[in-house]
C-alpha cells in the first residue's frame, strides 16, 4: 500500500465534507460535516506519520481530537442557545450577524 492512496482517500472525504458545509441548511449537519473534514485531515497526518516513521503526526492527531471534543461541546451549546431563541436550526433563518 502506498502513501498516495491514503492521501487520495482523505482528499475525497475532505471534499465530501466541504460539499456538506456548502449545501446543507441544518446547522447540526453542517457541524457534522466539519467533523468529517477534521477526520480526513487526521487520516492524512496518521498516514504521513506511519510512512515517514515519525511519531509527531500521531501526537498532532491526539491534540486535534482534544480540540475537536472541546469544539463539539461548545458548538452544540451554541446551537442549543440559538434554538432556544429562534426555535430553528436552519442557517438561512439565523442571519442576525449578516450585514
Amino acid at each position: 500500500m502506498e502513501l498516495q492512496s491514503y492521501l487520495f482517500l482523505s482528499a475525497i472525504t475532505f471534499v465530501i465534507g466541504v460539499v456538506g458545509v456548502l449545501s446543507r441548511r441544518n446547522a447540526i449537519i453542517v457541524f457534522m460535516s466539519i467533523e468529517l473534514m477534521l477526520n480526513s485531515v487526521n487520516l492524512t497526518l496518521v498516514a504521513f506519520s506511519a510512512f515517514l516513521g515519525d511519531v509527531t503526526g500521531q501526537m498532532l492527531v491526539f491534540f486535534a481530537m482534544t480540540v475537536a471534543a472541546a469544539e463539539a461541546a461548545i458548538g452544540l451549546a451554541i446551537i442549543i442557545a440559538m434554538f432556544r431563541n429562534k426555535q430553528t436550526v436552519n442557517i438561512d433563518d439565523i442571519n442576525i450577524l449578516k450585514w
Partner: protein
Amino acid sequence: MALESVAPKKQSNQQSSSTNNFLRPSVTIEIFLFYTLGAVSVGSALMMVTRRSPVMSALYLILNFFALGGLYLSLHAQFIAFIQILVYAGAIMVLFVFVIMLLNLGDEKKLNERFSWKKIVGAGLSFGVLMELLFVFAYSKANLPPSQFEKATEIGTVENIGMQLFTTFLFPFEVTSVLLLAAIVGAVVLAKKKLN
C-alpha cells in the same frame, strides 16, 4: 565470556525478526482492508451528507468513524485507532445524537432547493478543491523521502505515544487541560437558560 555475549544477541535478533514478520500484515490483506474500509468511509460520508434526517446523518457519521478507526489500525496507529473509537464514535457522537433528539428536529424540508447560481459556484469550487488536492498529492510523490513503513509497528504503540506525550509534548499536553476547562465552563454558560 565471548560465547555468553554472543548468544543473547543472536537470540534477540531472532526474536525481533520473528515479531516483525508476525506484526507485518501481508500485502494482499492490507490492500483488501484499505479498499474495503475506504469504500465504507467514502460511502458513509456521502450518505451522511445526503440524508434528510439528522439522526440518520449522525449514524452514518459514526459508521465513517469506525471505518477510519480500521484504517488507523491498518497504519499501525493502535493508540489513535482506539481513541478514535472511544472519543469520536463514543463521546462526541453521543453528544450529537443527544442534542438532535433533545431539539426534536424533523427532516429538513427542501434538500434540493431551487436551482441557483450559488449552488453552481459552490459545486464548481468543491470540484476545484478536489482536483487541486489530488493534483498536489499525485505530484508530491517525487519529493517524498523513502517509505519507512517497517518502523510504523513501533511508533504507534500506547507505550511510545505515552512516552512522547509526557516528555517531548508535555507542555502542549498541560495546555490541553486548560483548553478543556475553558470548554467545560463555556458549554455550561452557553447552555444556561438565561444569559446575564
